[in-house]
């Protein structure tokens, strides 16, 4: 495959490539690459919490115990980010990020976070039925959407509604308000144990008949998921989300229909679906190249892969996520993180334009972090102003060695620089090759993939 296509393919199903990686991957098909990739689970070191009977601890120590446990969610966050930056399984990593956005779940407990993230990792290119079922049974989701409070005598509709609206069918698409209420009944009693293990509480579960999508029966949650998956609308909704995320923010109806057919007939095989996209000619059409705006995570991961950016201080990575509004495991709401143009407004754009130069010259970042009351109710009480160095390290030698012989404009913009900006860049003076690169990646086009 030609360079331009390889760059585009792994901009979307990956986090961008260096010149050397382009050469390497142009010799193998996407399907081969995907089949060679491994599922890498994340495993936290939780040994210090094991065997502690926190219930017997005095209150102060118990609080301390939970505080320390909560801190571990940061480790989980950093481990995931580290995988995205360093793993060779780039397609898997990108799919993980997508599914975490799709099943947007804010997680505080690192144990449940680990379980949740590994459900995604195991199923990211597997079968969608397994994925949605395991997610529904995960402790993190049960906590997040109040499934615990969903009981026979008092159904809580939160999970049932989001299952339909956000995870499978799309808002008000082929389900009614009444369906939501009945679906909630089918999921009553879904709980998890202390360590995250799934159980159905028999007394809290409603064994009565439910009428869902016009069918009546004593359905349980798993059967409801099958009822939903029977609807082609579900395949269409997932394909639409995948199209918007991996192909173009505006859906082409013809392509969507094609993908929906592939996905539905394969009984929700995610691997078949993404291979179909990567093998379609339309995926590489001009209007799809550089048509998407990078999310902050895509931005920093891509930059880090290109310039071998590292940071010994974990706080800087977390601060970056906070400042740019995309915190791993903490999407702002059930709809997930922002997408595409939503990332760019007058406030974020100037910062994003400056970011590469701030990182690659170790300059001072002059920003105030937003207080986070969820994390710390006292956060808003103190002046949150600071200006500091993020302390990222970078490796210019690596960059120039990896990209020897590459035209940097191709590498960064895949041939999409407008004539005016091309003329501007050609005329604009620079003293060093470093300066040349920094100027290029400070252009608005660098925000695109």
């Amino acid at each position, binding site marked *: 495959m030609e360079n331009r296509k390889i760059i585009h393919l792994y901009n979307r199903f990956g986090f961008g490539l260096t010149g050397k990686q382009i050469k390497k991957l142009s010799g193998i098909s996407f399907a081969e690459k995907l089949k060679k990739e491994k599922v890498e689970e994340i495993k936290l070191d939780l040994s210090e919490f094991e065997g502690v009977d926190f219930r017997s601890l005095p209150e102060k120590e118990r609080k301390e115990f939970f505080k320390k446990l909560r801190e571990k969610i940061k480790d989980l966050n950093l481990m995931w980010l580290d995988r995205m930056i360093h793993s060779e399984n780039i397609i898997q990593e990108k799919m993980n990020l997508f599914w975490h956005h799709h099943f947007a779940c804010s997680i505080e407990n690192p144990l449940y976070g680990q379980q949740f993230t590994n459900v995604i990792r195991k199923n990211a290119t597997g079968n969608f039925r397994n994925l949605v079922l395991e997610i529904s049974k995960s402790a993190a989701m049960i906590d997040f959407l*109040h499934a615990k*409070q969903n*009981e026979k*005598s*008092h159904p*809580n*509709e*939160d999970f049932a*509604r989001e299952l339909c*609206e956000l995870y499978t069918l799309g*808002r*008000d698409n082929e389900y009614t*308000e009444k369906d939501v209420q009945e679906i909630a009944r089918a999921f009553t009693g879904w709980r998890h144990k202390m360590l995250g293990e799934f159980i159905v509480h028999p007394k809290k579960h409603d064994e009565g008949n439910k009428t869902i999508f016009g069918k009546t029966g004593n359905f349980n949650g798993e059967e409801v998921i099958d009822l939903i998956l029977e609807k082609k609308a579900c395949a269409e909704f997932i394909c639409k989300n995948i199209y918007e995320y991996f192909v173009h*923010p505006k859906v082409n109806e013809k392509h969507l229909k094609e993908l929906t057919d592939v996905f539905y007939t394969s009984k929700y095989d995610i691997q078949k679906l993404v291979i179909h996209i990567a093998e379609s000619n339309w995926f590489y059409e001009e*209007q799809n190249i*550089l*048509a*998407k*705006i990078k999310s902050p995570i895509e931005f920093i991961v891509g930059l880090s892969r290109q310039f071998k950016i590292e940071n010994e201080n974990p706080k800087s990575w977390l601060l970056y996520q906070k400042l740019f*509004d995309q915190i791993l495991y903490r999407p702002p*709401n*059930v*709809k997930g993180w*922002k997408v*595409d*143009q*939503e990332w*760019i*407004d*007058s*406030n*974020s*754009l*100037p*910062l994003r*334009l*400056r970011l590469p130069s701030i990182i690659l010259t170790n300059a001072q970042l*002059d*920003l*105030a972090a*937003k*207080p986070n*009351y969820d994390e710390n109710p006292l956060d*808003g*009480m103190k002046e949150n102003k600071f200006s500091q160095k993020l302390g990222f390290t970078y490796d210019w030698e690596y960059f120039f060695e990896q990209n020897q012989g590459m035209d940097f404009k191709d590498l960064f913009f895949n041939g*999409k620089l*407008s004539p*005016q*900006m091309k003329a*501007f860049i050609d005329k*604009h003076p620079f003293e060093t090759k470093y300066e040349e690169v920094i*100027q290029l990646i*400070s*252009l*608005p*086009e660098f*925000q*695109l993939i």
Partner: protein
Amino acid sequence: MKRREFIRNTSLGAIGTFFIPEFLRGMDWMNLDEGNQFRKLIVIQLSGGNDGLNTIIPFENDLYYNLRPQISISKNEVIKLNDELGLNPNMGEFHKLFKDGLVSIVNSVGYPNPNRSHFRSMDIWHTAVDSNQYSKSGWLGRYMDSYCSNSHSMLELDSQLSLALHGKERNGLALEQSDKLYKTLRDKYFRDVIETAESAELNEDNQGYLYKTLIQTNQSAKYLAETHTVKDNNLEFPQTGLGKKLAQVSQFIRSGFSTQVYYVSHNGFDSHVNQRKSQDKLLEDYSKSVSALVQSLEKSGDLELTLILTFSEFGRRVEENGSSGTDHGKANNLFLIGKNLKHPGIYNDGPDLSNLDDGDISYKVDFRNVYWDILNEWFGKDASKIISKSFTSLGILS
């Protein structure tokens, strides 16, 4: 006639729009007053679905107490507003505003065929279209399209911009501090990039979107940094997220910004679990922060020209759930605060709890009617350009 009045009369009376005649623009004394002549709207959004029934409590209604054995607020706790309705006991400061005739409470506000999803319902409130329709532009954004020329005409005190402030042509500005943008763009290279982009033809895709946003940002950043002159310590505001945001709004107004709409969110109202604890705290913060805002604007003489709207995307289920909380509901109350209210107080009867819509309060007043009046009567603009359905005045604003 004072100069300020002269300009007000000229621009509002004779010309009828907010555009200032070109010949007045460059004059030095104009810059001091430019913003103050025009009416402002501050929108405070209670995000997550505020439980209106525990905000304005129907303390004589047995149905309310029967359906809420855990979380109801008892008759002797409420701050009585009339014989039937009382305020949440944590809203003492708000009660003072009420007594001073600065508040109108509108009950049972909603829309036909309500949606219980946060996002959909918030979208409906932001876009002001029927609940079975979708729009990519918000009601204030469309106001900008028709009547404003700069993105700083509408400011959201946040790191991200709400749909309400997205127009078809123009977006409002989201910002946390007035000079942050300007500092970020003050660099020779970026100035050159912007200059090049200004003379280029920009396309409609994301590439064009990035450059258009950059150009707009640059113009507004300059204006805001230069105009923000009042910088007091705002000690009278609560040192909370909301308090700090409203303190900024107060500074901007007193600095004479030409900004017409300020948008602020107060987050955390999605009270499925242990509602009393979280909501009481949020309402106390709201009450104190709004009161500080009103007082600071009263002192500077800007209150006359300011209207504050407070709303939430929906109310909550009348019956409490199994976890001392409430689930998503439908109609809700809404507040208008300012000096130009025709009949301050409680505008209409409290919600009818004996005729519920599937367990929820039914709407009696369409929220778009409130928007309609704000556009027509407060801003003196043609609301039919912005809202596709037409309404007759509720008679709240003067």
